[in-house]
């Protein structure tokens, strides 16, 4: 019986991680659309066009927040501080998803009535937009209903608990949470960017080395999240103390090598960032800066250096 329960728990954890990463990919796709839309409209200088565009694309923005709510539900199931918090947070995020879903559906219906959409499947950016957004909203409403029913109908003792994580230390909690969130977002961006890059980078026209370099730094960002978030954070406190220095040294070497290779690749194709895989760099073009890639290059480096400092401090403290 115990084994059966453990298997069930393991299955749900695995599912949660898979859903978490799928939701991340969806969030990234939505974010690409949202940020490019926003930036395109804002810099346009024609407020009338910007307003028209924003109103047309509102379901895309709402879909982004729907994906985020799904991401939060999956993350809560994957790891939480206690069964009580799991129940509370899962219901909260599912509820947000359901409300956003309803809002989206109402908005599209209103858009159809007022003529904003020429038909329910007018097309662009997908062949059936905004119908796809409506279907997406329905999916999240269904998920929310399932979660509420699950917590309502399942007996207290049989509820899924998931891996329990230690609460974040109170000292500097805000700073820790802030930087962790930023890092997670960038690392996820790298993660999705890596898989997406297979479809959009250019291995001809002299861009091979730059394309490989972009894929490499995205992969390292992805590796960074895998090591720290999926491996390190699941270790016991003692194991963490023992492995911090070693892990951060390895990751520092990997990130330094990848950063150097990135700059070598860039040197070979100085017009690479504006020609290769631009779709995964939505922020970069607005200010004509190499912002997005640099962030992806340097974040794992900063995380590795932070880990190294932490490891050294712990080592020094242990010697005392």
């Amino acid at each position: 019986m115990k084994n059966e329960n453990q298997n069930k728990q393991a299955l749900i954890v695995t599912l949660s991680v898979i859903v978490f990463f799928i939701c991340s990919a969806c969030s990234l796709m939505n974010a690409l659309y949202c940020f490019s839309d926003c930036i395109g409209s804002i810099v346009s200088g024609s407020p009338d066009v910007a307003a028209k565009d924003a109103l047309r694309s509102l379901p895309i923005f709402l879909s982004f927040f729907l994906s985020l709510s799904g991401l939060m539900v999956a993350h809560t199931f994957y790891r939480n501080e206690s069964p009580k918090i799991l129940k509370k947070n899962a219901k909260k995020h599912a509820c947000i998803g359901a409300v956003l879903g309803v809002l989206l559906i109402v908005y599209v219906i209103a858009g159809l009535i007022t003529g904003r959409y020429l038909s329910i499947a007018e097309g662009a950016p997908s062949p059936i937009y905004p119908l796809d957004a409506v279907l997406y909203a329905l999916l999240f409403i269904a998920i929310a209903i399932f979660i509420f029913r699950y917590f309502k109908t399942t007996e207290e003792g049989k509820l899924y608990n998931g891996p329990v994580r230690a609460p974040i230390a109170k000292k500097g909690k805000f700073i820790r949470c802030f930087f962790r969130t930023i890092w997670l977002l960038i690392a996820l961006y790298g993660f999705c960017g890596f898989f997406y890059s297979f479809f959009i980078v250019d291995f001809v026209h002299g861009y091979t080395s730059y394309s490989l370099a972009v894929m490499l730094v995205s992969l390292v960002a992805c590796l960074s999240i895998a090591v720290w978030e999926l491996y390190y954070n699941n270790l016991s406190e003692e194991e963490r103390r023992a492995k911090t220095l070693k892990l951060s040294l390895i990751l520092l070497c990997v990130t330094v090598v990848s950063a150097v290779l990135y700059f070598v690749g860039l040197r070979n194709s100085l017009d690479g960032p504006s020609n290769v895989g631009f779709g995964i760099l939505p922020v970069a073009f607005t200010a004509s800066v190499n912002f997005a890639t640099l962030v992806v290059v340097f974040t794992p480096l900063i995380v590795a250096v932070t880990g190294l400092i932490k490891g050294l401090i712990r080592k020094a403290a242990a010697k005392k």
Partner: protein
Amino acid sequence: MKKRLFCIILSVIMLFSFTGCTETMAYGENLEEYIVTMQYHDQFNILQLTDIHWNANTSAKSSMIYMDKLLKEVNDHIVSTQGEGSKIDLVELTGDMLMLANSYHLKTFINYFEQKAEEYGFVYAPVWGNHDRQGLYNSNTLAKRFSEAPHCLYFEPNDDLYGRSNYIINLTEDGSTSSKVDWMIANLDSGASFSETELSVFRDYDYIRPEQTEWFLREHELAGEDVPVIAYYHIPQDENDKVWTAVTEDGANIRNKFFKLEDFADNGNEKYASNFIDEAKKHNLKGAFMGHAHNVDWTYEEDGVVVGLGVKTGPELYFAHIKTDSEDPAMQEGLSSVGINENFDLIGASLVTLKDQSGSFDLEHLYFNERKDGDFAAWVKW
């Protein structure tokens, strides 16, 4: 385990080396490979559509409705001014057709132009803009789909010439490559942007590189020294900036018209000044038309070469709102130059009509706005 890892790494390296090492053509030794031909006739009509800018926000359906009306207006105008049987012969799409669009936009865009090409009997020739590279599709997909579209003249050799859409449309006596060239239409890729060094935080706008100029000059020599040329590309070059300064600082005797609302050269760095127009002038360049700047459609003529912007096509992203009660002297000057006495948006198209083989042509700008109480259409001659 080590053997397996070695095999995997070797396979990956081989895969990338196969994809990365396709044979590169030397442009200097393959000048004929860049040429397509069409049959020339007097009153050859080239319609320039620019900066259509389908993006993630775009309702493709609404945009197609606008372009349907625009193309009909152009066709009707050509028939009424040139007679039955006249038509749009060539559509030049001078860049920024898309921006952060996806494969669906791309497919719909090409299908639309294929359908219209069939309906009106034209062929179309796209050149890359800076934003066309900013797609959620692979840039090669865009190149491949345009190359495969039956009415599209675009092709892209895997060459050592900088840029992608560098190709020549020679208008010849009978449409074959062996007959005399009457006009040359040069399409150039003015790029997107580049970093000065690998450590640069900022990027500069790209420019027509000296090797592209050299390529053009050699193509022109091949066609014949006296062949008149019109060039189409996306990003305005350094010469435009110099003329802008000359005209706006009074006293310059340079003919100019339409709406001189903002400077329209982008790089601005002398180090990256393109030599294209300066050199092409010596090779019978008659006109150079571009896009990129949406708030302006200024055109000037210097040393017998007409250089100007096309009128932005369609209401995506941004464009200038022309107001008759504006206190902006540039807008008032523009209004008096075109003789329009009502408010309108600076969107539409521009039309070049090649009159004869001597190198003379007509240029007209069309301002076309959709309106609930009847669409607005105004044709203005250069």
